[in-house]
């Protein structure tokens, strides 16, 4: 029905898509797999008319077609549900659904009653009790996603494109969405499903196309392959290379935290990290792990306790003092806290090198180049804004920024969240190498395989207290989980 033929698209020197072909067939759900930065989002934006391909053609019912903008794609029957909801927060749910193609009455007036009736119908079809008159500003992400889905449904789309629609949905909502997608498919609609969750692809789709580095890798019938096959296609190598922690012999104590307490957040937290050691801080979300890291780095004050870096006491509540002592913190949310998104790559890397607010341009550039190469950041120009990079590459820039200071203690908070499998392995290799060079690494992570694979020791927090300190040899999934959930370790 809708097809891409050898489509290419570049942004600056970054080639986002290279001669990719894809066929969407009526009555079939097609999965699009690939790591972050593989070109999935670019492909979706070409289908939705946001980007125009540099080369190659789009075929609609075997005839070449050009989308000059989203309106053209919509007119052709393509409906897209984006990863992040694209709603108008000030307008009501109903208006959001019909914006751009409202039903009319005489004199071109909006037919509000018809709009509302149809909105209510759509929501009852989706089985969700949403108030059609409510402004979308107050809605949860999941509810906003449902409005997006209703919007797509209202278009009587022939092609439904879903770009990671399930990221914010709960189990029930995912099932309902899949139910709707399934019935649309049976009515002869073509579905393109983009997701990171393999199980969802396997339960919803019939065929899967894999992209890697912007190029087409394979198109398979889902029934003929296993999830492992698919991962291999996505990554281009076996998963066994993940978590490559090299054994090291720990040296001096680099970071010592003694009975650190912040009222109502964490209590009596004591631990040591030696140079050359990777210590994981595990626990459930909300156990107080990131808060400990923030306190050690001086962002938040602590009420009691002491922190020593390389044997010398650290002043409380001062990131400047922490940085001077050689502590670096790579925060959890890189967009909000780790990067100045609109600044260039070199500027971001140079940021922590500010001395009395001055930088030398030449030194900044030399340092940025050096680190970008060492971390294998993929970029077109060092002067590009960080926004254009993929998530994994952004994380590398954050790392580069701190590593450029040559810290003694590196605290990383969820270093691989939202990063694809391949880059993840690279970040792991990097952390492991850095530890090998004598850096003390404190890694906060919610991913158990990462914790178990990377850490020399696993500290577990539960409700603001440190409840377990497990050496690498004894660390198992069961023990860590038991401690994290408050059952005796």
């Amino acid at each position, binding site marked *: 029905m809708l097809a891409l033929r050898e489509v290419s698209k570049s942004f600056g020197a970054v080639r986002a898509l290279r001669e990719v072909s894809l066929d969407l067939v009526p009555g079939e759900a097609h999965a699009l797999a690939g790591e972050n930065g593989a070109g999935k989002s670019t492909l979706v934006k070409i289908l*939705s008319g*946001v980007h125009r391909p540099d080369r190659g053609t789009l075929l609609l019912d075997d005839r070449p077609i050009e989308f000059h*903008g*989203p*309106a053209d794609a*919509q007119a052709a029957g393509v409906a*897209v549900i*984006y990863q992040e909801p*694209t*709603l*108008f*927060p*000030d*307008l009501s749910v109903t*208006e959001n659904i019909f*914006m*751009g*193609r*409202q039903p*009319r009455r005489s*004199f*071109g*007036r*909006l037919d509000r009653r018809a709009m509302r*009736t149809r909105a*209510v*119908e759509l*929501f*009852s079809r989706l089985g969700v*009790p*949403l*108030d*059609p*008159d*409510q*402004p979308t*500003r*107050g*809605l*949860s992400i999941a*509810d906003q996603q449902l409005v997006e889905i209703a919007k797509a449904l209202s278009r009587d789309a022939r092609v439904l494109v879903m770009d990671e629609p399930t990221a914010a949905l709960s189990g029930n909502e995912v099932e309902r969405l899949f139910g709707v997608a399934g019935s649309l498919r049976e009515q002869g609609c073509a579905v393109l499903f983009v997701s990171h969750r393999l199980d969802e692809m396997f339960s919803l789709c019939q065929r899967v196309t894999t992209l890697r580095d912007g190029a087409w890798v394979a198109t398979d019938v889902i029934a003929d392959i296993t999830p492992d096959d698919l991962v291999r296609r996505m990554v281009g190598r076996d998963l066994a290379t993940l978590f490559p922690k090299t054994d090291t012999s720990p040296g001096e104590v680099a970071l010592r935290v003694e009975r650190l307490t912040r009222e109502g957040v964490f209590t009596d937290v004591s631990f040591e990290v030696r140079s050359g050691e990777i210590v994981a801080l595990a626990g459930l979300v909300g156990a107080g792990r990131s808060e400990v890291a923030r306190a050690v780095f001086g962002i938040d004050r602590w009420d009691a306790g002491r922190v020593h870096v390389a044997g010398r006491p650290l002043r409380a509540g001062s990131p400047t003092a922490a940085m001077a002592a050689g502590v670096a913190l790579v925060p959890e949310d890189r967009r909000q806290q780790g990067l100045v998104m609109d600044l260039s790559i070199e500027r971001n890397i140079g940021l922590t090198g500010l001395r009395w607010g001055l930088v030398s341009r030449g030194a900044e550039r030399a340092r940025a180049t050096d680190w970008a190469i060492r971390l294998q950041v993929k970029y077109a120009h060092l002067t590009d804004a960080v926004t254009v990079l993929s998530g994994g590459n952004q994380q590398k820039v954050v790392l580069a920024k701190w590593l450029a200071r040559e810290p003694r203690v590196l605290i990383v908070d969820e270093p691989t969240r939202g990063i694809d499998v391949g880059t993840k392995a690279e970040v792991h290799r990097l952390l492991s190498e850095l530890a090998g060079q004598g850096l003390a690494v404190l890694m906060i992570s919610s991913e158990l395989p990462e914790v178990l694979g990377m850490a020399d020791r696993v500290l577990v927090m539960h409700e603001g207290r440190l409840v377990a300190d497990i050496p690498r040899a004894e660390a198992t999934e069961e023990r860590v989980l038991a401690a994290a959930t408050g059952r005796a370790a």
Partner: protein
Amino acid sequence: MTTSTERTHARPNAGARAFVDRVARVRELGIVVALLALFGITGAVNPAFLSPASIRDILLNSAIIATLAVGQTLVVVTRNVDLSVSSVVGISAFGGALILADHPQIPIPVVIAGCVVLGAACGAINGLLVGVARVPALVATLGTLYAFRGVDYAWAGGRQVNAADMPQGFLRLGSADVLGVPLPALVALTVLLAVGWVMRNLPQGRELYAIGSSPDAAVLAGIGVRKRVLTAFVVSGALAGLAGVMWAARFGTVDATVATGKELDVIAAVVVGGVAIFGGSGTVYGAALGALLLSGITSALAVLRVDALAQTAINGALILAAIILDRLLAIRVAKALRKRRYRDAR
């Protein structure tokens, strides 16, 4: 159909919920209350404030700013701003007056139409700069604010047009009454109702709100963002042209400095009227009420014998108060919506 309505009614605190919804949707209520308080209190202190002559004065004074505020609202709703309106008023008032004085044979309606077209052309320049060339509106219209005024000065060359030079028929338009209401106020009201209807009932109007609410989403929804933004500026310019005619007819004496600085009064009226300065919400009715409130306050302060020098400060304080109140309400509403979401999630 039934699920959502039943759900709303089934809530034990449906009253609180309805209040939150009302405040979220009808911000203008606050200004109406403020207006009533203003007239009530001032009238109680000095009943002369409520006399027909005094009310007529307030309506006349607010008509021009209200007309401009309606145009400004269209622009602000799209997350832009038009600072150049005062210069457009100036150029239109002077141009219109000059032609009427030098060429009395040209019919008055033609001159009025010409002024509106002149304003629309100025608006089109703004719209092209902002909508098409993507210059931030604050910068673009700050530039045209000076540029248009400069053209005005060059055209006038120090000349002043006096009431005696203009046809009596034209000047009468500025003060004539129709059914006891001054004509300029009627014109402003007509403009208000027409634009208000369009903004509520036509897709073009709703699309302006959509653009201001989320420009990126507007593009994805297939809305012609450039065209709409251009249109908003053209309408704002045209209404400024009309306001220029009203100015010339009302005051009679016109030189190149007419309406200097009025752009801030207009924006103040819009903001006090509950139009979000970052776009996406607010109505032209609110903006017009804001204009009425501000000129009412000026009159009230005069009636209450407040020192003229203190009036500016009081005006400023009231604007701040209006904005703070608006913020507080917005925060309250956001909080209520958040709580509601938690409740509904359970």
